[in-house]
């Protein structure tokens, strides 16, 4: 997986590549639902969202997260296996996005096939 644009939440990978996004809530109960290519579901207890990229070049997978709070806190959303993350100061090979709230956040990731 490779970061295309950190601020616009855009990534790319190889055809059929496995993608793992980890969501961790701090200071709030996790109140998270997500929509993956149009299908909505609640976040699993382990906080992991896993899927495979499509198989044709330039095709995209869209992941939209709804992150809500019942107390002030932070969500840490990590796209795993991203060696080129522009904000990865510790060089751990993943891309971390931190969002504090309330208010609620809606974040829409795009994962392209290279």
């Amino acid at each position: 997986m490779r970061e295309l644009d950190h601020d616009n939440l855009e990534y790319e990978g190889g055809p059929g590549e496995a993608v793992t996004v980890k969501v961790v809530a701090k200071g709030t109960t996790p109140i998270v639902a997500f929509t993956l290519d149009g299908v909505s579901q609640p976040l699993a207890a382990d906080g992991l969202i896993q899927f495979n990229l499509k198989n044709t070049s330039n095709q995209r997978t869209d992941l939209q997260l709804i992150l809500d709070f019942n107390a002030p806190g932070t969500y840490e959303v990590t796209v795993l296996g991203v060696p080129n993350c522009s904000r990865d100061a510790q060089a751990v090979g993943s891309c971390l996005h931190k969002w504090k709230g309330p208010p609620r956040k809606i974040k829409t990731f795009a994962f392209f096939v290279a």
Partner: protein
Amino acid sequence: MKKIAPLLFAAIFTLSSIALQGQQAATDEAQIQQLRANIQRMIENAPPQGSAEERSHRDALASLGNQLRDLLVEKRGALKSRIKNLETPDALPEVLAHVEQLKQAVEGINGEVQNIDRAFGQNLAPARAAAAMAQPAIQAPAQVAQPSPAETAFRNAVRNISTDDIREAAAPAEVATSEAVVTCNDQGRPASTTFSRLDESICGLASDLIDEDRGMNLAQDLDPIFIILTAQLLKTKTTGGESYAAFVSEATEKRTDQQMGAGPSTNGSTSIVSKGGVPYLFGLAVENGAAVQSTSDTTITFRVNPAGVINTFANKGFVTGFQQAQNDPVMNFLRKTSIGFSFDTSRGNQAGVFTGNKQQLSAISARVELFNDRDPRLKKYEADWEKFVANEGVKLAQEVWKTTVATVDFGSGRGQHKSFRDPALQAWLEQMTAKVSQVDASLTGASRINAIATVIREQAALVPVDRVSEDTIQGITGFAKQDKAYTTAKNSLLDKIAKGKLFTLDYTNTRAVSAPDTSNFNFIAATGTGSRVDLTANGSFTLFHKRPLAASPTSPRPGRFRDFQFAGQVLVPFKVGDLGQFDFWFSGRYERLLGDASTAAGGTMPGTRGDIAIGQFGLNVPITSLGIKFPISLTFANRTELVKEREIRGNFGFTFNWDTLLSKLKPF
């Protein structure tokens, strides 16, 4: 020949200039590379921390950083100039694709300049400077998809919509502008307890843009943008305006379980029932007497939460403190305790003036929460939240996705960022982004947040409602309906949690001037009902520290037990418009005096032993923005402790909850 000579000269001059510019650019680029390499070597060969060379190393590094920054800024200027020249209304797709690549190069330079500012602008230590500088200077260019003719046409349409066009398409100012401007605090929260979802969203968005050091975009900022569109579009198009009260603030206001004033056994308390709950930091209450005794004094109570004080003095914020307290057993216990100090201002050398000295200290109290079910983060509510997400969360996610697809164009491929489908809305967004980027970068903290929030608020009032498509209006309406259903369901769950059980033990040591001191043990239970009514019950007894003297040589000397009491209160919270939450209550108390009552002078009043019944109606009037409440009550009693006559008395006071203020000033 005469005519050709000037043309030839001009051509030679122009070509020479271009060649010189080209040489200059190449020289600059070489210098940039050289500086980067030198900085990298300096970072890799940094002296040990604290060594004598550290200063000169840091100065040299800063000098190189400044040189690099200057060159990068020049390069950025040149690139922007080229972009401006190329990005014309008749530009062909190939040119626009090239412009996109130039823009990416500008973004890369922006990132590198910011890295330099972070690394050298704050006198960072070499290790941190290295970490900051180690971030990639320019992102590797992605393969940018060529814009389609439709996309090019869309871009041209957006570019042709001026700020005046947007202004003309906006709703009239008297409709679009919100009634009262709510400022933001330095944490990106509204600096008021009364605010709308719009206020909350604008403050949050301004804060996010600063924290994340980025521009506004549709991948990250859909929630506040949808809220803005809901507020503006629906106000003008369908419902006539809808203000969504912020549920987090509502939840704080609903915490009616905190006793800020003195307990009922202290002179001057306006309440006849003690309530459970412990304030996070401390409360200051100044109250003017009730009909418990025949004397009426002014009592000032300070109630302190030790965990809150420890955290506050450790310079930690309101919520961080709470979270840490949950993980630490000692802090977790301290969080459930509070200590109160009551001062009777009628005492001492300067009667009527609060001096806070030992003479005026009339009571010391300690309170421990034995049981509190009113924190929404408790493990016991996890299943409720999971159910909420599975139902309302998923429904909202579906509707948000539908609205996103209806209003947002995802672009044809990599490098094509999301944009609104409506050209007017996209132009509105881009104009807002441009205005936000012009906010004075030297501002910091709340000033910067408020400067950006002001721009967003002004632009929010300019949503081009007359040029927005029906599809967009329908999409936003769908979002607003589901958002309201979601918020209502969430508030119901928070209401249910706010009615949880509370059981508290309160100890009060009352220090009389001449009479014997007493100890009062009060057990307080509270719960809510399905109809948002708060019920509180007290059971207490009071002991003398030493037996009082008899009223006369022939009278029996009172025993150690002074009294026992039972009390109950029904409290009904209700809201009046934007004024905040009022509380109406009715209380009753029965007290059995087991011996004759003691006077302040230390004597005993004969014939005062017996039963006392007290009833009270009251109303808490809030000033929400200041965290102040004015309790006004009417108390009626069959007698007082010292005088066996009926009494009716009106009371008033004010309570001041620092939690409210602190949470506004530093909520995270």
